[in-house]
């Protein structure tokens, strides 16, 4: 009984955060802000459903299931990377380097550095030096 309440609670929480993430997609005005909505749906939204599933299998079916942990791990690995891709594409399409804050060093954000200027700085020798600096 108590377990059923707990499972339902997890499912409701997961549903609420999934819904809020979708509402955010409609409501927020520009692409960078809309990108914040799916990071929520994948964390607490999916997380709640996975915890509910683990509780169900452990207490109702009677065996422990690891698959939910795997789903969490794979989501946590892939969600930031897709988010990063979308942000970079958006920067390419809709932003100028002047819109962004300065990097604080001579070189620009990686998105805006041309291949020619990168090749001029990153000669094979400098790459070796850089590797030495990082490992040292």
């Amino acid at each position, binding site marked *: 009984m108590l377990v059923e309440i707990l499972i339902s609670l997890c499912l409701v929480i997961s549903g609420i955060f999934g819904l809020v993430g979708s509402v955010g997609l409609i409501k927020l005005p520009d692409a960078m802000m809309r990108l*914040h909505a799916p990071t929520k749906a994948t964390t607490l939204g999916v997380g709640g459903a996975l915890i509910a599933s683990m509780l169900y299998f452990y207490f109702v079916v009677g065996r422990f299931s690891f698959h939910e942990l795997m789903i969490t791990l794979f989501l946590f690995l892939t969600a930031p990377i897709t988010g990063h891709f979308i942000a970079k594409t958006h920067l390419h399409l809709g932003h100028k380097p002047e819109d962004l804050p300065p990097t604080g060093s001579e070189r620009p954000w990686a998105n805006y550095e041309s291949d020619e200027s990168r090749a001029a700085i990153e000669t094979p020798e400098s790459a070796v030096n850089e590797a030495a600096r990082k490992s040292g």
Partner: protein
Amino acid sequence: MLRKILPHPYLTLLLLVVWQMLVNKITLGNLVLGLILGILIPLVTAPYWPNTPRLRSIPRIVEYVLLVLWDICVANVQVAYIILFKSNANTRPAWVTIPLELKTPEAITVLAGTITLTPGTVSSDLSADGRSLLVHCLDAPDPESVRDQIKARYERRLMEIFE
């Protein structure tokens, strides 16, 4: 010699554990198969990942993971509040530059992933020399405090783990 057979011992351990979880049943056969995969995959991929990162302390990694999970829960509620109850005119999105003290690519990747997973901040770009990170905040009336919080809360701990 051991380095030659196991170029990434942590990766071997991780693959072994992940394999047990994927098959969802721990038997001797699965352990052996997991161990074979755990030895073969790091050997095959070693040329793409030459410098093994040194991990300083396991308890600190556990502490970091728990901290991030807790922050994800708290930040979820905060962002849900912003989406549901704050008008778009009152929301202050901001770009924040985070100067990095972390040097190893693995540590910077973990920091960028953490920033994206905690709702309200998305890491968007890295400077060409890898010394600062561009972060977009959903609602940051005070961008400096966001920067200081990320540096104090996550980067300091990652420094202790990786460098």
